[in-house]
């Protein structure tokens, strides 16, 4: 690491112009993130053309801080309205919304903000200090390893099935099935597209996510709007979490940030995956698992720390090797290309001034997040004072705008509404949409990497055992499945007897 370039980066960032851009970007990110239907990737894509006229460092600072802001902003709507503002905040709904129903929305939002801040800061530091080292790790992850990660991710479905395991598996299986819609990677054959070219690229899971989470919530709000007697309309508890709570959550936040950085590193997986992984691990390590899903603060801290840690994680291979770690960083890389900077391993050396400016911008954006976020969150809490009927209409409007903006396609709006009606039925039938979303996210990764692995390994399953990384991950997946069955309890029975001699 060239320390002079690091300092040039720092001095570049600390200019009135850039700090203004970072604050503006963070605020814009918070706003976009908080709106259900508008995601970080989309906001980056929309803002990108505007930054073409900026100087590269300023433009990048703004884009990076937007990315950081949106990664936290998604949790606000997730906690207050049960509608994830961004795909990576879907896991936050599970415990965030119950907390808000119990009148503890302030606490949940505060925990979410601090977890996001710590996660983002940790990944920013990892980015500054260990990017070249961690960057090379990315090359270890080929199709074989990616398949193992996807399998491990799919096992989360088992532990998410709240209540009925059968309905959880049904929902997950349905998600996997829907993820096969679209062109087959190895043959180019369109599958289950019914000659509809809008389905050739598959079902965009963001479209499905908006429908599955936001539309049913809007319909439920309308259903209950005439009943009056709104619960949790006032935030009575404090936003700033107590130091004791933060200390208690620290191991969880550190673990989740680690997960976020690693998942962010790997191309093909991003914040949407990392938050589920982190949620699952927080649950696994918790002493009292039964509180998850009913308003456990650890269930808010974990996904939020992870999805903000993804930002730095995904930037690591981007700046170390010129390989984007997520769809959002692919847009940042596009911004570099349009500015005439050719992405490659020389980003840290030849274009060090711009790259280190970007890294410092990420770190400063996290600090800005804490400041701007506190004010923004306090303001956004007032949303709960608006009558449910108006909120429902606003959510539906945003859903339609959001679904359209992904691909500028009206077809996607129809698809989103279809998913919405299905999600409404699911919520009435007591089937959780979360496993379905995981199926939709990981299904394409799993299928694609499986087909590639089979081609590389000459149709032999042995290819998965030849890679140490894949083997370890697959064993973890097996253990994770066994954990959800009574298998371990049977194993423990003889030991328990010995412990109780009388």
């Amino acid at each position, binding site marked *: 690491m060239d320390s002079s370039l690091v300092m040039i980066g720092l001095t570049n960032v600390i200019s009135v112009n850039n700090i203004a851009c970072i604050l503006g970007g963070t605020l*814009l990110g918070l706003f976009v993130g908080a709106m259900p239907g508008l995601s970080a990737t989309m906001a980056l894509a929309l803002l990108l053309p505007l930054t073409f006229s900026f100087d590269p460092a300023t433009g990048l600072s703004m884009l990076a801080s937007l990315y950081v802001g949106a990664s936290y902003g998604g949790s606000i709507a997730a906690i207050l309205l049960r509608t994830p503002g961004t795909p990576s905040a879907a896991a936050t709904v599970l415990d965030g919304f119950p907390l808000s129903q119990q009148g503890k929305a302030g606490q949940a939002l505060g925990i979410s903000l601090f977890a996001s801040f710590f996660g983002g800061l940790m990944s920013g530091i990892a980015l500054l200090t260990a990017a070249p080292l961690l960057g090379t790790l990315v090359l270890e992850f080929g199709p074989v390893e990616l398949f193992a990660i996807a399998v491990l991710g799919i096992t989360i479905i088992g532990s998410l099935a709240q209540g009925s395991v059968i309905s959880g598996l049904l929902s997950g299986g349905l998600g996997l099935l829907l993820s096969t819609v679209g062109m087959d990677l*190895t*043959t180019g054959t*369109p599958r289950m597209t019914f000659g509809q070219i809008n389905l*050739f*690229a598959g079902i965009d899971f963001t479209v499905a996510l908006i429908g599955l989470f936001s539309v049913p919530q809007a319909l439920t709000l309308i259903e209950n709007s005439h009943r009056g007697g709104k619960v949790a309309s006032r935030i009575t508890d404090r936003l700033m979490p107590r130091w004791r709570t933060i200390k208690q959550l620290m191991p969880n936040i550190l673990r989740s940030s680690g997960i976020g950085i690693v998942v962010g590193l790997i191309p093909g997986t991003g914040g949407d995956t990392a938050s589920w992984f982190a949620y699952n691990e927080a649950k696994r390590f918790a002493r009292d698992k039964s509180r998850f899903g009913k308003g456990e603060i650890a269930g808010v801290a974990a996904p939020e720390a992870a999805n903000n840690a993804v930002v730095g994680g995904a930037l690591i291979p981007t700046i170390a090797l010129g390989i984007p770690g997520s769809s959002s960083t692919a847009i940042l890389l596009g911004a570099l290309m349009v500015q005439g900077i050719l992405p490659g391993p020389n980003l840290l050396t030849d274009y060090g001034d711009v790259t280190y400016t970007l890294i410092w911008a990420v770190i400063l954006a996290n600090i800005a997040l804490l400041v701007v976020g506190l004010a923004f969150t306090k303001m956004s809490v007032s949303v709960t004072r608006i009558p449910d009927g108006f909120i429902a209409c606003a959510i539906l409007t945003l859903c339609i705008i959001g679904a359209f903006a992904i*691909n500028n396609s009206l077809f996607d709006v129809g698809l989103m509404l279809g998913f919405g009606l299905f999600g409404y039925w699911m919520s009435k039938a007591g089937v959780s949409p979360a496993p379905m979303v995981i199926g939709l996210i990981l299904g394409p990764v799993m299928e694609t990497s499986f087909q590639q692995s089979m081609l590389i390994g000459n149709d032999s399953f042995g290819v998965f055992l030849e890679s140490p990384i894949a083997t370890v991950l697959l064993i973890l997946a097996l253990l994770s499945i066994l954990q959800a069955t009574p298998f371990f309890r049977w194993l423990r029975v003889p030991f328990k007897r010995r412990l109780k001699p009388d």
Partner: protein
Amino acid sequence: MHAKPLRHWLTIAAVAISLSPLAQAADYVGGDEITVLQGFKPGGGSDALAQLVQPRLSEILGVDFVNEYMPGATGAVAWTRLAKQSPNDGSTISITNTPMLMTNYIMNDAITYKTDEMTPIANVVTDPGIVVVSADSPYQTIEDLFAAAEQSPGTVTIGNSGVGGDDFFTTILLEQAKGLSFKKVPFQGDGPSATAAMGGKIDASFNNVGNVYGQVESGNLRALAVFAEKRLTSLPDVPTMKEKGVDVVAGSSRGYSAPADIPAEARQQLIEAFQTLAKDPDFQAQAEKRAMNLDVVTGDDYRAMIDKMESDYREIWDSVKDQVGR
């Protein structure tokens, strides 16, 4: 505490807008605004081309360009819109990527547009095909790779950017020319294919120069051959396939096309604008800086280029379509 950053942001936005080129006297017959349909997401290769070409074209023609991104079905959503639903008054054009433009509908009956429903205006860049291997690969030369494929047919793994992309077809062309058989591994784009080669997950990646140039320069990837007519000035030590006795010249090209039957005058103005652009030394320098290989082919010549590609790729696909997917 909110007002200040917001005001700054607004100031910046206002400055950005005022900096954008203002519409000059409208002498273009298609109107003073041209919508450019892009079949891919912002920030991709097509967008990079648009950002290089359109500001300059905007000055030449005195019009504003509006990009409309409609990703989906490897560009087919945008190109179907261009061919079937766009006004043919010269106010709407699209960035057309070849050979994807034709392989899309050659391979899938559900894609219904055809290139004869379009007016080709100009090709702008051609990114030649290139064979790259990881830095520690045992294959030092292209002959090593051929020898390995000859020794054990169908086992040498070659990454490509996806079934139907230029790299996929280039692999088939090479197989047919040399009587070899590779194991073709499709990836979702050129980037992942190059990354897999870099990590030694596949034996080689058939890619495009613009995508891997930085990695080749820095030594993460080794280039074995390029599918170009002549050696490239940017990679003078890399032999062409022609030198190695394989008559395969291929790459991925990007240009601009309009819907069919646009006014002859609009077509002529657009073609002339691209011809003027091609002579602009600043444009040439900027293209070189971005490792874009200029290959400006306008009007009837671009039409001929597209027609030839269509018949060539249809022939290749007919000869291999039964084997794909095994």
